């Protein structure tokens, strides 16, 4: 009976992992990149190289908006921080409708002057792709949520299937074909297990009001906005006084907000009806110093600066959700901790990749016996190569497009995304026309070359290259280039490995223990 249970769990693990594995791989890769969303956005706008946060940023942004959009009903001002030292302003154009209603600009924190940077989606592209897959938002979110549920199943069944989870805790036996793939899959799965469970579960929590709307529906009916107002402390609309009014000085309000939050800074300022006597200034707390990702805010009367409302510490249920949400977003982390998250993310990527490859490796004897590759196995092989070895290529191409497309090109951000998907399509052509081993090698080599070339192309096309950024210790830009070189080295290593042994053709564990050190381990296993 026990054996039967294990076997059925193994079956569930294999198939729940395989069907969604490719999407999960892309979700994990783009999710891991999203830990560096502000840094990627910065790098993709090299014109912003010398920006610095400035204490007067809020005041100068308000002055700039009073010039540019005095009649707008709403301004949003994102204040600069160390990771993204620019002011981003968005305002509603009162005369426009549809998607063009909201206008954006990037401002210099010190002067409030607009900075002309190239138009790009930057790190936001990976962030949105991570949970929407560039599909229609609602569809993408359902697909990713569904895959996340499969991932939870695969994690639980994987732990059950893994017979010697503690005995094999430290075991990785390289150069042994299938054995090595299984070891690798287990090691990255088990050693980063707390992360895998946390990230999958918290990922579902981020969109829980969409996946499980019934609780809200039962209590609020169709009025979801009322629920969010109450639960998340997002303030409601205020009526117009229809008399002109002038905004008060923002500086003392910033200090008041800080006092309310134990010294934490405001990160987002929303000004409602800025030119009206009944204007409101709302500030939202920056969450970079704590786990919880809550939208705590304070509201001031715009003309007098009187404190009208301050959301206190949220109730336990909201707080729980805020912490789980915060764990997923990882905005709290200092940069060493962020790198630890990225490392765990990499473990997740490797776990999914090795699991997918393992499916093929396990069926290698079957292919040898048949003398041909059955359709299903060929399909998995092509998808594996196209996704696992293809996605690194497409990401590098996306960054290259950012540097190489003409600056004045209309719809430039769209062209960057088109380059991304064109490269991905091409990555599926190579495994279709070439044998598996050659295709793995060619794709990884291409990806390594493209990543290695990024700092070079960057140096040829911009002034934000390593020669400048290293000297001025600009770690956002220099870090990006150096990371590209690191990724290139890693991919090169994988390509070299792929050319020596073919993942899918090697027979399992042929040669027993070449070195004396391996003997006892071998004996124990037998």
């Amino acid at each position, binding site marked *: 009976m026990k054996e039967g249970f294990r076997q059925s769990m193994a079956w569930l693990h294999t198939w729940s992992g395989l069907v969604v594995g490719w999407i999960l791989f892309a979700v994990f890769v783009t999710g891991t990149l999203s830990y560096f969303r502000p840094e990627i956005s910065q790098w993709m706008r090299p014109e912003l190289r010398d920006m610095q946060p400035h204490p007067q940023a809020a005041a100068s942004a308000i002055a700039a908006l009073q010039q540019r959009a005095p009649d707008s009903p709403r301004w949003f001002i994102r204040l600069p921080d160390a990771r993204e030292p620019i002011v981003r302003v968005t305002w509603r154009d009162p005369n426009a409708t549809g998607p063009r209603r909201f206008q954006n600009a990037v401002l210099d924190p010190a002067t409030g002057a607009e900075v002309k940077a190239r138009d790009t989606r930057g790190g936001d592209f990976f962030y949105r792709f991570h949970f929407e897959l560039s599909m229609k938002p609602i569809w993408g979110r359902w697909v990713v949520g569904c895959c996340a549920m499969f991932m939870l199943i695969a994690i639980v069944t994987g732990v059950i299937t893994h017979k010697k989870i503690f005995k094999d805790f430290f075991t*990785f036996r390289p150069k042994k074909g299938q054995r090595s793939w299984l070891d690798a899959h287990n090691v990255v799965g088990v050693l980063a297990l707390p992360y895998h469970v946390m990230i999958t579960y918290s990922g579902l929590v981020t969109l829980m009001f969409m996946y499980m709307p019934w609780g809200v529906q039962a209590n609020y009916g169709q009025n979801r906005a009322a629920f969010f107002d109450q639960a998340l402390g997002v303030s409601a609309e205020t009526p117009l006084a229809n008399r002109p009014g002038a905004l008060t000085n923002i500086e003392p309000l910033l200090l008041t907000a800080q006092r309310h939050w134990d010294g934490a800074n405001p990160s987002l300022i929303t000004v409602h009806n800025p030119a009206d006597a009944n204007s409101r200034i709302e500030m939202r707390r920056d969450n970079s110093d704590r786990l919880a990702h809550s939208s705590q805010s304070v509201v001031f009367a715009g003309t007098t600066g009187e404190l009208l409302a301050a959301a206190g510490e949220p109730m336990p249920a909201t707080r729980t959700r805020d912490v789980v949400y915060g764990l997923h977003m990882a905005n709290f982390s*200092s940069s060493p*901790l962020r790198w630890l998250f990225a490392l765990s993310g990499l473990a997740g990527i490797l776990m999914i990749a090795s699991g997918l490859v393992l499916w093929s490796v396990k069926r290698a004897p079957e292919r040898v016996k048949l003398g041909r590759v059955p359709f299903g196995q060929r399909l998995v092989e092509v998808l594996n190569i196209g996704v696992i070895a293809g996605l690194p290529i497409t990401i590098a191409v996306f960054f290259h497009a950012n540097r190489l497309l003409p600056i004045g090109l209309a719809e430039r951000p769209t062209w960057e995304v088109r380059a991304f998907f064109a490269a991905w399509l091409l990555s599926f052509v190579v495994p279709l026309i070439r044998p598996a081993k050659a295709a793995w090698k060619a794709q990884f080599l291409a990806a390594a070359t493209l990543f290695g070339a990024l700092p070079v192309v960057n140096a040829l096309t911009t002034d934000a290259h390593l020669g400048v950024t290293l000297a001025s210790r600009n770690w956002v830009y220099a870090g990006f280039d150096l990371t590209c070189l690191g990724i290139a080295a890693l991919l090169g290593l994988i390509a070299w490995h792929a050319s020596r042994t073919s993942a899918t053709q090697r027979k399992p564990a042929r040669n027993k223990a070449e070195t004396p050190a391996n003997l006892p381990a071998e004996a124990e296993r037998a």
Partner: protein
Amino acid sequence: MSLFPFALTYTGWVALCLSLSRHAREILQREPSPLERHLLRAAGWLALTASLLLTAARTGWPLGTVEWFGMLTATAVSFVLLLSFYPRLAAGLGLGLPVCAAVVSLV
């Protein structure tokens, strides 16, 4: 995040690994006695716990726990990789890393 608790997690893994006879034979070339195995296991858990306490004392329990899990994964993966290619170096670093971390922190 400081280096010493980070290094301690590595030491913890090494001690726990040496308490398993298969790995002990590979690294020490001999079977550890039952007493040695108990001591190693205790030392391993002690190192991991000490690391958690030190991290929590520095950044508070909520962030400290998260940092600790991140460090556990990072050192475990690096240790296992090193262990499969250079087992004796991997074990030796269990003593070397905390000493280096302590020296760096003091300097």
